């Protein structure tokens, strides 16, 4: 991650495409906070890649001035993995919705943590399928009425933070898009963390989720740093992560491993011992070719 010498402002990360989200959508806050975090960290826009899946939330790369990839539903993490391994000098941010990351893409989420590529994964968790106009999601609370659960959700929600912790994620945080200043600070820490970092963001869908509204969150949100949570304490992190639903809703850094696993680019002997792949020559020297063929004879 290189830093620019000249001052960068959040608006320098604004693309020429205006967001098409509903007025009041939580994803505006997610976008603003990310623009602020990148400006604060002085990462030149051309060295950032934002990779997304499909959903309202996944439209974000189009509104962010940086390179981007708006791919398939559920697949931002493996795509981001390829980008980061091909060019480790880029700041690679994977993003998407709760359906995208915790539903169809769940296995990539767990394996992404296991693989520990240096990615920041931001999930805009609105506990609903927004783009498809309001069906139940893997994080919808039990009992919630949606278009696809007309008599209320009979299933329990998944707990992404506990899953991430159990899978070995070294940086686990949750933010709220109603508090972009706090959220930007979480992003900055996540981007600076070397390895896979999760920031789950409660990002209300004002159109299709009439339960988990801004007010609902404001009544319940507690900042972990204010209640003296020790983010290096794994057990405490698990206990805080369990709190979901009608009780209090903690936000902040749940866990930051004091002895984080080295990211894949430090473990892979090729990546660890030279420039980014894209900065190496493409070809194969005569000597190399001959040696391989000798071995195959």
């Amino acid at each position: 991650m290189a830093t620019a010498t000249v001052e960068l402002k959040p608006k320098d990360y604004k693309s020429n495409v205006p967001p098409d989200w509903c007025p009041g959508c939580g994803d505006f806050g997610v976008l603003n906070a990310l623009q602020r975090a990148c400006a604060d960290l002085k990462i030149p826009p051309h060295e950032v890649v934002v990779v997304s899946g499909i959903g309202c939330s996944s439209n974000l790369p189009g509104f962010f001035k940086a390179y981007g990839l708006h791919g398939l539903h559920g697949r931002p993490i493996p795509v981001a993995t390829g980008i980061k391994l091909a060019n480790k000098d880029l700041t690679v941010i994977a993003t998407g919705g709760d359906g995208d990351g915790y539903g169809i893409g769940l296995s990539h989420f767990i394996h992404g943590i296991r693989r520990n590529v240096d990615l920041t994964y931001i999930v805009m968790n609105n506990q609903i399928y927004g783009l498809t106009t309001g069906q139940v999601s893997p994080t919808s609370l039990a009992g919630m009425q949606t278009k696809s659960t007309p008599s209320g959700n009979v299933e329990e929600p998944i707990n992404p933070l506990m899953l991430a912790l159990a899978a070995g994620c070294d940086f686990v945080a949750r933010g709220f898009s109603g508090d972009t200043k706090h959220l930007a600070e979480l992003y900055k820490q996540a981007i600076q963390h070397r390895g896979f970092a999760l920031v789950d963001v409660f990002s209300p869908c004002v159109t299709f989720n009439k339960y988990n509204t801004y007010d609902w969150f404001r009544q319940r949100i507690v900042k972990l740093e204010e209640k003296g949570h020790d983010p290096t304490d794994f057990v405490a992190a698990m206990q805080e992560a369990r709190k979901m639903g009608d009780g209090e809703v903690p936000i902040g850094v749940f866990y930051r491993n004091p002895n984080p696993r080295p990211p894949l680019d430090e473990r892979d002997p090729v990546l660890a011992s030279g420039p980014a792949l894209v900065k190496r020559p493409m070809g194969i020297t005569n000597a190399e070719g001959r040696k391989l063929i000798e071995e195959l004879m």
Partner: protein
Amino acid sequence: MATEMAEAATRVVDLVVGVAGDTGVTPGIMTTGEMLTLAVSRVGYDIYTFQTNPAEIKGGQAWYQLRLSDQQLLSQGNDVNVLIAFDEEGFEKNEKVLADGGVLIYDASAYEPHPSREFRLVGVPMTKIAREQVRFPLAKNMVGLGAAAALVDLDLQVIRRMIEQKYAAKSMEIVEKNFACVELGANYVRSELGLSPIVRLKPIPRPERLVLSGNEAISLGALAAGCRFFAGYPITPASTILEFMMRELPRFGGVALQMEDEIAALASCIGASVAGKKAMTATSGPGLSLMVELLGLAVMAEVPVVVADIQRAGPSTGMPTKTEQSDLNLALYGGHGDAPRVVVAPSSVGDAFYTAIRAFNLAEYTQGPCILLSDANLANRKATVDRPDSQGVKIVNRLLAPESDERLPKPFPRYQITMSGISPYAVPGMKGTYFVATGLEHDEYGAPNYTPEVHTAMSHKRFRKLESAYANRNGDEWVSLYGARGEADLGVISWGSNEGVIREAVAQANAEGYKVAFAHVHVLNPLPEKELKAFISRVRRVMVAEINFAGQFAHLLAGRFKIDPIPLTKVSGTPFTPQEVLDGIRDAAA
């Protein structure tokens, strides 16, 4: 045609050896075949193998077939001349392919065969020799190998070097014991049975050549083409490409990964390619089925990427170790929407190296996915090939946009409409520009756009890129022509690994007085229309040969060229034999 007939006429040695038995009882069955293959190739003979591994992981009947000749080989041959059968079931299962008067080498301490036809029986007490004389019962297969070597008068020192290569790292004692078994087997045949060789494999002096499998050739070609990112997921018969790349890519400054599934494998390749590195994944039918949504993304977002599909018999899990060419439709059309992609198919082990390079070149040129369709037959079988020439081949890289010095990046027309359909590529990290590679329909800048004008223009653009690739093939041979040059009674068209066997059958048919031409298609999409039109117009009837039930290529050609081809298909999980193709030609020409 002239050269093919001359070739057949000058063939002095043309021998097919089969090795059969239960790998649970005789674990070294495949090793026996492989060592014989390498040794024969070392002394200068052309080899062509065919093998079927048992479906069980350990145990079950295995089959290894080696054809060898002093001249170039085009197929695995028909009947077997020498059968090494380690157990009775191995003999009984394969007796039908042993030619009349052929040689049966069997383990006389395991069984006495009861053949239904006349064979030359060579009983060697393999188990007894290995156990009692060498005290190494595991190496009874080596006694069989020695017996076979004596019958073809193969220099035992060549075999010794193979054994050293394989076992010297383990221990010299193992080398000595294995070789003792080989010598005892050979001596038994010569002295105890007093048999003289049926052929003499005198060394042929020639430059050393490689013995490669199709999967190795694809992997080497990918390396030569500049592939430096590989991601895969294990699946028979493609796993050996994953293993090769995991082993070799780091040495060439590349990264190989085993992902959690085929979706993640192709997705990460797409990511690596977007970031500017040439990338490939390898899979088989079930994996390709999972990848089709991503193929569409690579088409829409215009990302060069190579997908090697090593076909096996389907549908569903099908027959994982058996060969078939039934993924053609999936490769050509798999996925939703109008998603044009390049499809190429290697025709032999030697050609697989160059086809892999062609696949990368076409992917880079068209900035889209290219599927390389190989099959289980080509994947595992070994053939002698001339040293691949990576110097003489042309490497194509995607058209890049220039970098600019703007402090803040400007939107970049990544999907600029051009005459060729091909737009300059900006790599993330490049200063002065930015864009979003996207699977949504988009305008020239990558911004989502669903207007009728844009979708129409962009659809044209995506298809036009393939037309441009065909127009700019610059002497690259997309169709190979064999057999009768002018007008012919029958024109055979085929694709993939059938090229050699059909060449052989066509040469034979022409020698018998039929007038047969043969066109072998290397690029299946975009189809080389001009070449095929010219070919079809000079033959009276077209026959399309392929290893699948429905005649997938025949249907494609029927629709495209308004013809009614005779299908020559086979779905036994095994490749064509020259005899089967010859019979097909005779029927069609009659």
